[in-house]
């Protein structure tokens, strides 16, 4: 919303400075977005009298002028303008002035041997026109010493404010002035609107053609004819105002409606009566009806839109934009003026559907003052009669104005309750009444009726806001919020929140870099990772490849990895901890942690090195990250099952079936998976490997057991030396080493403290299709040193068990 300071002063009797006005606007909630103040920019340019202009002794084209600037002694100025002459009045700028048209700051100078202390200026130098033929030539009565901008009326600053959706009333200058008056900036002097008596009945009839349920679409419609007008260009003052706020003057009738829109937040419409055939009907449009609107575009309508039609068809889009066919131009002699009320919701929807952003739509969808429907028409009529002449008809008024809302029961104490601010009752009452509220009753509780232009005010809290914004929010005193209990703060984070935080730090400490990628990914990528269901597809994605809520963090990470590789950083280790989606319910959203390693981005180091180059990443890097994460989070991994295999074994479809596994606590407790990314997935996503990854759902992890005390279990240390025995078994290649370890462990759970795989061998010396798995078994005696025979017995038992279960033979 833009207006000029002088326009504001039509409504507000104030002597306050522009700065005070703009500060106050922001203070009361009408945030100033921009102020354009030519007067300030041109402050140094003042009116001066040329006492004498004589020829420069050393230059034919220059003159030496003695100038009376109105401030002390005459000033000598060298001037090159052909029109500089004795006795003229022009515009002077002293040294130090910034000259906008030349983008220089003026200095004192000596020009061809003659001192020059300033400049006489052209309009171009002030950036006021293209005219640089000579210096500005002012009338004889121009007051010497006065700022030029003030003299020519350029001291009218243009103010632009941001108006919040609740403050429709501030979309007119009168409403802005009301707020400023209430805030103490001066008296409100908006002129009263007097009814204009019609000299004859309006010849055009109006029908509100709505079913009972649709009557809200046009609650009221007022119309009158003014005949015999002359629709010439509007007067300069009106054109200047419209131009100042960025509108193009058209003709007097149109300019008047624009003026009413911005002055009083009362959009109107004018029809050229000669182009209207028959009577007017206000109704829903018929599907397929079209209109060529005043913006020169043609619109096809549906029954969702409301129109004003005559015997020709649709003449105007109600409350949004008029039609070209019945528009007013310089030939218009008889004009129909409409002032109506429309349903804000319908206007908003229609405007959105048609893609029209007009000043009328903007106001009607926020809500205009219903009580100003008829006065608005009278005011416009008066302006038309004044500027265009003519004779007005009586007003046709169809429909009814809505009843005003009931008064609010308001205890003054509400202000202190909600703001902590203790204001005198008289101040609170004055704030309300000066904003147009009606306060009735006395004492602690009063009835407050909101004015018709404040449809947004419905309850006590709204009144508190009105009072406190006029009083000033700066008066609200900052008050410490007491602790709920006066004690040391209890921990606030949940187990999942702590694990989410810890997971990030753990993964970062393993050399992975945290990425935050989009929650939405392409439909193809979503489908590839088990998503893509219809309920998670956006109806209006911002881009075609950001259409589906991600079922997994991996597509985003894989894509990010490739983008880095494309930039020359191929050894990428990334992780993300964030939400993934299984369906559109709150329960279908999970917190996942995923990691990705690419190239040679291994834990121990990256890339080539004098001490030996890093190998390309493999599936065990992903497994190490995942296991490291689980142990780091303190998840008990005793019951964890690592189930090998790809999608056919119930594992992830994104992973290499022979180089991946699913992690679960029991058949239904799947927590995640790790693996090498499947070559088909690499191809489908157009990325290059090697690429290994893991992903788990943090919310699927078992919760720690509740313990009544923080005491740790007793530490039992054995005083006897542990003994380690090595066994190398020859087994089929398909036998899982992990199973062999479990078998060895289970041979004597009390005695065997640890089983490790210390060697793995295939090749020469081992039969084809078989492998050698070397286990180091550590025995920890508890109550006595083991005898060699006891150790041998355990060993024999392990060997027997391995032979039985896996057909394993000791390697010779």
């Amino acid at each position, binding site marked *: 919303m833009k207006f000029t300071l002088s326009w504001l002063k039509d409504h507000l009797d104030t002597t306050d400075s522009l700065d005070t006005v703009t500060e106050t606007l922001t203070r009361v909630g009408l945030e100033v977005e921009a102020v354009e103040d030519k007067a300030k920019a041109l402050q140094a340019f003042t009116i001066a009298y040329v006492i004498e202009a004589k020829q420069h002794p050393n230059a034919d084209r220059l003159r030496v002028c003695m100038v009376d600037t109105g401030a002390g002694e005459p000033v000598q100025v060298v001037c090159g303008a052909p029109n500089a002459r004795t006795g003229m009045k022009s515009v002077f700028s002293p040294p130090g002035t910034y000259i906008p048209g030349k983008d220089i700051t003026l200095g004192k100078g000596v020009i061809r041997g003659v001192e020059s202390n300033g400049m006489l200026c052209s309009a171009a130098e002030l950036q006021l026109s293209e005219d640089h033929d000579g210096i500005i030539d002012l009338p004889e009565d121009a007051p010497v010493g006065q700022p030029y901008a003030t003299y020519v009326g350029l001291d009218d600053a243009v103010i632009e404010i941001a108006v919040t959706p609740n403050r429709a009333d501030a979309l007119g200058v009168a409403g802005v002035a009301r707020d400023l008056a209430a805030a103490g900036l001066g008296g409100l002097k908006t002129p009263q609107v007097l009814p204009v008596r019609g000299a004859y009945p309006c010849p055009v009839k109006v029908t509100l053609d709505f079913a009972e349920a649709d009557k809200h679409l046009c609650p009221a419609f007022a119309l009158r004819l003014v005949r015999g007008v002359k629709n010439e260009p509007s007067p300069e003052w009106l054109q200047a105002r419209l131009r100042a706020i960025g509108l193009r003057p058209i003709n007097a009738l149109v300019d008047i409606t624009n003026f009413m829109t911005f002055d009083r937040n009362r959009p109107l419409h004018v029809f050229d009566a000669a182009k209207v055939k028959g009577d007017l009907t206000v109704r829903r449009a018929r599907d397929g009806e079209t209109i060529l609107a005043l913006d020169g575009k043609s619109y096809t309508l549906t029954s969702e839109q409301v129109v004003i039609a005559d015997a020709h068809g649709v003449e105007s889009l109600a409350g949004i934009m008029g039609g070209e066919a019945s528009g007013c131009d310089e030939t218009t002699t008889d004009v129909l003026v409409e002032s109506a009320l429309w349903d804000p919701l319908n206007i908003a929807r229609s405007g959105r559907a048609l893609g029209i952003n007009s000043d009328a739509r903007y106001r009607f969808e926020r809500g205009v003052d219903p009580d100003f429907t008829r006065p608005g028409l009278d005011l416009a009529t008066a302006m038309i009669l004044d500027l265009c002449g003519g004779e007005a008809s009586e007003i046709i008024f169809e429909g009814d104005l809505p009843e005003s809302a009931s008064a609010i029961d308001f205890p003054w104490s509400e202000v202190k309750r909600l703001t902590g601010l203790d204001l005198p009752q008289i101040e609170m009452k004055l704030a309300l009444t000066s904003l147009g509220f009606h306060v009735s009753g006395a004492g602690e509780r009063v009835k407050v009726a909101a004015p018709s232009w404040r449809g947004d005010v419905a309850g006590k809290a709204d009144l508190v806001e009105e009072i406190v914004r006029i009083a000033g*929010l700066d008066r609200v005193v900052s*008050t410490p919020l007491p602790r709920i209990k006066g004690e040391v703060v209890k921990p606030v984070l949940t187990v999942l929140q702590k694990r989410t935080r810890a997971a990030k730090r753990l993964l970062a400490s393993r050399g992975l870099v945290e*990425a935050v990628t989009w929650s939405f990914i392409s439909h193809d990528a979503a489908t590839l990772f088990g998503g893509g269901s219809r309920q998670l597809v956006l109806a209006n994605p911002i881009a075609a490849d950001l259409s589906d809520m991600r079922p997994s963090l991996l597509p985003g*990470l894989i894509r990010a990895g490739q983008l880095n590789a494309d*930039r020359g950083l191929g050894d990428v280790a990334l992780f993300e901890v964030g939400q993934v989606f299984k369906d559109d319910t709150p329960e279908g959203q999970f917190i996942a942690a995923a990691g990705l390693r690419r190239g040679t981005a291994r834990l121990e180091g990256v890339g080539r090195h004098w001490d030996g180059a890093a190998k390309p990443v493999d599936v065990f890097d992903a497994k190490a990250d995942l296991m490291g994460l689980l142990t780091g989070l303190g998840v008990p991994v005793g019951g964890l099952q690592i189930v090998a295999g790809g999608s056919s074994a119930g594992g992830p479809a994104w992973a290499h079936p022979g180089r991946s596994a699913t992690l679960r606590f029991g058949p239904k407790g799947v927590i995640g998976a790790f693996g090498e990314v499947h070559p088909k997935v690499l191809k489908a996503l157009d990325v290059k490997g090697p690429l290994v990854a893991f992903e788990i759902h943090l919310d699927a992890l078992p919760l720690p057991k509740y313990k009544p005390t923080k005491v740790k279990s007793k530490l039992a240390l054995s005083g006897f030396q542990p003994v380690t025995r090595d066994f190398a078994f020859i087994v089929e290649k398909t036998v899982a080493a992990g199973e062999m370890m479990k078998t060895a462990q289970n041979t004597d759970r009390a005695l065997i403290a640890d089983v490790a795989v210390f060697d793995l061998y295939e090749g020469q010396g081992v039969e084809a299709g078989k492998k050698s798995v070397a286990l180091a078994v550590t025995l920890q005696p508890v109550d006595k040193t083991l005898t060699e025979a006891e150790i041998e017995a355990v060993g024999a038992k392990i060997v027997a068990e391995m032979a039985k279960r896996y057909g394993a033979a000791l390697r010779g």
Partner: protein
Amino acid sequence: MNEIDNLGASLLADIAGAQDETALEQVRIAALGKAGSISALLKTLGAMTPEERKDKGPLINGLRDKVQGALSARKEALGEAALDARLASETVDITLPVREGPEARGRIHPISQVIDEITAIFGDMGFSVAEGPDVETDDLNFTKLNFPVGHPAREMHDTFFFAPDANGERKLLRTHTSPVQVRTMMAQEPPIRVICPGRTYRMDSDQTHTPMFHQVEGLVIDKKAHMGHMKWVLEEFCKAFFEIDNVKMRFRPSFFPFTEPSVEVDIQCSRKGGEIRFGEGEDWLEILGCGMVHPNVLRNCGLDPDVYQGFAWGMGIDRIAMLKYGMPDLRPFFEADLRWLAHYGFRPLDLPTLTGGLSS
């Protein structure tokens, strides 16, 4: 000179001349071995008369002790020299670079870091952290928050929608974390003190807007919380978060459907040379929106607005991260460019605390 002195001089010369431990050992054996020269002399003692022994004994034993002492001294000296020689031969080029460890490569994203900072500050004021789903209902994202159906305020949000389900209801991506406030109020009896950090979505894209961004909202509900408390909480937060002693804030009346009165907060700053600094200067920078929770919202959540009251605020996590740490553009936050993350990211153990400081 007698025989013993001669032998002693000869042996000591041999010891001094031994160039390594092997040579020295040979000297030892030649002197003190079974067939050694000193051993031979010692053997003669047995055949001597007491008088002879009394005379020769100390001489021979003295010789033995002297030679033994010289042997061990020489051995130690040779050992030292050998060690020196070994150490010299073992010298490596210590300037060779070691592999960069994982702790040097890993990074925490600024958003995670700033969420941890915010949590540390509000946790100290007794706020817990509430979370909710990104896919929300229209009811919780708008209607319960007092956005009338079709109200222009809804348009300001540029909402992402999903296709309508069988009942015609269409879910959406939450445009703010306010639905978490609603869920909290519906689930929990006051007093309530929560912050709600999380991802939010609006159809917007330019230097300072991305279709996905992060917000943190706060909510206080009890029977006394008023705007003065709100002012204090926000002032204290800004001081703690930006790690400055003084902050000048401007509270301006504004409009949000879910608060009444509604306030926008500007923070005073200087913008010298394109760098924003708080606690100085004459410029204002909008930083957050807040207000007293609207009575309709309280009612919609089952709370009586004449009994309960409170305030709420919301701000952009990405935005305050940019203001604090100086990233000029929001878009790279979500591009996972390793160069950007290495520069703007945080070390794994840069854990923000109030005791140790939020940032190092």
